[in-house]
């Protein structure tokens, strides 16, 4: 039984640890979990994500972040830049480790494959490798010089899914993005899940289980756990709530209010563990 409360699961994460966050942009991100980390005042986290928005920005706004390794952090046109992330980087509080989405994937692959680094095609002509100190190796067959991305081995992959059992077997509906890879690259996995299902439900179609229980340390029952983002096919992005967050993010007082306002929903009564 790995089913625990949100507060218990968030306490597993220690200051200074590296966390890969599942989902993409405003889609199926572990928003409830991220808010709880902020409420618990976690500090000095290193966040890993190909394309992030609310999750990364909120933790930056809360002062929880030392470093972000990502390809893209921003809200889309409707909302604009990720202001808290931007401010954090510009002030020097947050170290932006410049990546392409694919180099994040390569770094995660290196970890998943037990390798010190993983080659990646492309990046020719870009200033990204020099800035981030991506080094090249010579291919021993062709002599070609290829960029090697150093291993990214997060302490935790925190993933929001639609279905999980109490042991941690998880099924994702819709796009998986980098979630499956993150589960393999990380030392352990924390799941938040829309539904807690019987294991027998997953046994009917074991092909659809994306994450096997043995990789998972904790499971939290978190209905609407990706809100204000979307979670296919259950709910769409709540655009007003995202806009409200963006106003809150610029001011510590209003951010506290935002976190407090969501606390009741986040600590869902069903999520007792």
């Amino acid at each position, binding site marked *: 039984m790995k089913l625990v409360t949100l507060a218990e699961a968030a306490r597993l994460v220690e200051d200074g640890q590296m966390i890969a966050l599942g989902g*993409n*942009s*405003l*889609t*199926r991100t572990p928003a409830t979990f991220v808010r709880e980390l902020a409420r618990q005042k976690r500090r000095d986290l290193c966040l890993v994500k*190909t*394309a992030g928005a609310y999750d990364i920005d909120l933790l930056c706004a809360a002062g929880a972040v030392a470093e972000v390794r*990502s*390809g*893209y*952090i*921003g809200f*889309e*046109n*409707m909302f604009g*830049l*990720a202001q808290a*992330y*931007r401010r954090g*980087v*510009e002030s*020097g509080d947050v170290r*932006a480790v*410049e*990546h*392409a*989405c*694919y*180099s994040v*994937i390569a770094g995660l692959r290196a970890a998943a494959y037990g390798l010190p680094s993983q080659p*990646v*095609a*492309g*990046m*020719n*002509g*870009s*200033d*990204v490798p020099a*800035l981030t100190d991506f080094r090249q190796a010579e291919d021993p067959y062709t002599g070609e010089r290829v960029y090697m991305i150093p291993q990214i081995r997060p302490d935790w992959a925190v993933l929001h899914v639609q279905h999980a059992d109490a042991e941690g077997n998880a099924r994702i509906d*819709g*796009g*998986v*993005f*980098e979630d*499956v*890879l993150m589960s393999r690259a990380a030392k352990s996995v924390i799941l938040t899940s829309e539904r807690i299902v019987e294991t027998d439900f997953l046994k009917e179609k074991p092909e659809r289980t994306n994450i096997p229980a043995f990789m998972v340390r904790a499971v939290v029952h978190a209905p609407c756990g990706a809100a204000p983002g*979307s*979670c*296919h*096919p259950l709910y*769409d*992005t709540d655009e007003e709530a995202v806009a409200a967050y963006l106003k809150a993010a610029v001011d510590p007082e209003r951010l506290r209010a935002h976190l407090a306002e969501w606390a009741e929903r986040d600590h869902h009564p069903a999520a007792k563990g």
Partner: protein
Amino acid sequence: MSRDIQNDVEAASRAADQMAVCLAREVGDGEFVFHGVNSPLPMVAIFLAKKLHAPRCTLISVAGAVDPEPERLPFSTNDPRLCAGAAALFSNPDAYDLFARGGFDLMFLGGAQIDKAGRVNMSYIGDPAAPKVRLPGGGGGSVIMPQAGRTVIWRTVHDTRTFVPKVDFVTQTGNLSRVVTPLAVLCMKEDGIELESVHAGSTAEEVAERTGFSLDLSGDIPETLPPADEELAALEELDPEGVRYSEFPVLRAAKREVSI
């Protein structure tokens, strides 16, 4: 709404339609094309191309599906509703791998700064070590741009802050084909970016003035083929909510005003 704002709104709407049509014309039938996050105009353009001249192009989107058939186009270009009607999902790592093995003919990328050499900045304004502005980052751009068959950059402002002599940081470069803006279509030549055609309502001189590097205006610069009636009708049918307008601040503001 004041007369001035109304003029701006009309100009921006025309520019958005012209840009959507120009981007759609870049898509060849049977080609493989990808669009990323925050890419409303390319998304609309690809569906427009599929509807008109490129029914057999294959679209893979960051939302994670192959050739989706969404009931309506969402404003977010990685909205999960963009997987609707697809027979196969395709994860982002899978899509990037397909780029890496040369499987995409065409990619649309944004650019905050673009220079004459076709280099694109999506990362930092100023010194990356102490940036004036931290931009979102290039997403997959730095690996995609050297790998895509060709890349088309679109940008909804055309000014000397965007078109600069030298970008502050090269996020991505390579295989640049064209740049589409509200004023013009530019194309990549041997010696760098040049003006290919100017949209109705602007002039080559205006484009040159609003471009921070030199353009060769000595030849005959044609007018961009304006949207055909058929194109405009298809666009309206495909995108009745005006997703293509969402990249223009003046149109977002106007929409808010109208809805109030």
